[in-house]
Structure formats: C-alpha cells, structure tokens
C-alpha cells in the first residue's frame, strides 16, 4: 500500500498497462475527422444557421407561433369585431320589435344597434298601406 503522493507515483510508474494504440484505428479515425472537418467547411443553409443558434431558434419558433395565431384570428374573428346586424338578433320583423329582441340588440351594440334593428324591421315590413279595411282595424 502507498503512504503518500510520491509513493503512489512510484507504484503507478511500475504498473504494466497495455496502452499501445491500434494503428488501423488511428488511420481510420484520421480519415473520419478530416471528412467531418471538410463537411463543416461547406456553407450552411439559412435553416441550418437558424437552428444552430439558440436565440435565433427561439425567435423562429416565436414567429411561427405568431403567424399561426394571426391566421386563426383572421379565419374566425372574435365576438367584438363582428357586425351587430339585426339578423343575428331576430329574423322576423315582428320579433325584431319585441322588448327582448331590442334589449339584446342594445346589449350587443348600444343605441346604434337598436336603431338599425328597428329600421331593418320597418324596411322588411314595407311601406304602410293608405287604405286599411275596417275589418283589419277591428
């Protein structure tokens, strides 16, 4: 057993260790590393240079996510941007003028939407007839 550092050094120097390299492996590896080196010399494509750097990689991912998000928003716009047309609140002119229907229109678009809905209802009903039969009045 060794006592100190120098003692250990002596033991190690006396060890019989087979550490002779294999010439075939040496030659083969030399070819491989030179080939790997020359491959690295070829100019990189834009995509390769983006992927290589973590910052550009993150930026590319962010751009892709934003693009997908914009595409989805464009295809189905959110509730607020839609046109508050009267047809969404009610379809028949009589129903457009009920309290419930006008309240709903007010909630969706304020007084403008209510006015629009009423106008639309009257347009759909057509011009008022001048001669109203007595039976109808009753």
């Amino acid at each position, binding site marked *: 057993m060794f006592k100190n550092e120098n003692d250990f050094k002596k033991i190690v120097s006396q060890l019989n*260790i087979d*550490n002779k*390299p294999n010439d075939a492996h040496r030659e083969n*590896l030399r070819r491989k*590393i030179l080939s790997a080196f020359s491959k690295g010399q070829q100019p990189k494509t834009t995509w390769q240079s983006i992927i290589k750097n973590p910052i550009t990689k993150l930026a590319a991912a962010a751009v892709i996510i934003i693009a997908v998000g914009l595409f989805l928003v464009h295809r189905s716009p959110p509730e607020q941007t839609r046109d508050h047309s009267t047809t969404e609140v009610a379809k028949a002119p009589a129903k457009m003028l009920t309290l419930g229907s006008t309240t709903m229109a007010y909630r969706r678009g304020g007084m403008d939407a209510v006015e629009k809905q009423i106008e639309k209802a009257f347009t759909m009903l057509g011009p008022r007839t001048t001669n109203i039969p007595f039976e109808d009045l009753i």
Partner: protein
Amino acid sequence: MAKTDNQIDIDDLVLRARTEADALGRLYELYYERIFRFCVYRLFSKDAAEDVTSTVFLAVAKSIRTFPGRTEEDFRNWLYAIATKQTNAYLRKTSRRNQLLQCAAASMTDNCTDHSVELDWPMLYAAILKLKPKYQTIITLRFFENLDFEQIGKIINARPSTVRVTLHRVLKKLRTHLQTVIDGEKQNV
C-alpha cells in the same frame, strides 16, 4: 519563459487548424496517442478507449472553427476537457461500469501468491473506479499523465490550490478503496 521553436510551430498549427485540414491532421497525429492513453487509464478496456477517442476527435473536428484558444497549451487543455467529459459520459451507465469492473476482476485472479496480494493495474483500476468521476479525472491527470496542479485546474475548471487539497483527500479515499479490493482478493485466495 521564452517559447522554443517547436512550441511556436505547434501554436501556429493550432491557429491554422481552424481553417486548414492539413494542420488539423498534424495536431491529431501529435495528440492521438496521448488522448488514447488517457482513455485507457480511465476506461481500462482498449475497445472502450478507442470508441471514446473517436468521439473526442470527431467533436474536435466539428468545433475547432469556434475554438477560442491560441496556444498549444490551450488546445491540450481543451482536448483533455473534452476527453474528460466523454469518458465521464461513458462511465455514467452503470452497466458499463459493472462491465469494466468485471473485466478488471477477471484480470486480477492469477496474481496471488501465498496469500499475499501484489498491487497491479486491474486492482488499482477497480479501486479508482469506486471514486467520483471528478476524482478519477484528477488521479489520472496527476499520476498517469503527470500534469501539474495548474494544468489540471485549467482542465477541470478549478483553482490549483483546490486541486492540491482535493488530491490529498482523494488519495486517502483511494487507500481505503484499495484496501477493500485487496481484502476481497485475499478472501478469494
């Protein structure tokens, strides 16, 4: 201290190796044996050492272009740092460690005479393998590669004084491990 002509030549090779395959090939020839030996000391098996040496030099070939060092010393330290990382990665798998231990144990058996056990390389390796990877590196660099504390510090990214103190503690641990290995061997006899 003034550099010799040979050192200046190698410094020049290190600078040229970033762009010239010929210079890289010459550096490879200069350091292949050294790195292979280091891998044998860390891995015991020559086959494993060949695999790891290949990984080390392929990593060098891929990243030499961005290597910031300018001298032979920088290159050597960088090379040893890569080799240390790769051997530790190899030894991280328990199955591989066990395989190497079995290999060392198989080489030990015919070394015992008359109930006394003489210290040999397989025994020492079995004891070294029980240490932490960082300690194994320090032992290998100091006693097998004969590097000084400053060089070891640069390779493992520590101060020379830290390396010195650590080595002192590691040798104590190694002595204990070695005793365990020798006792086990005596029982086998």
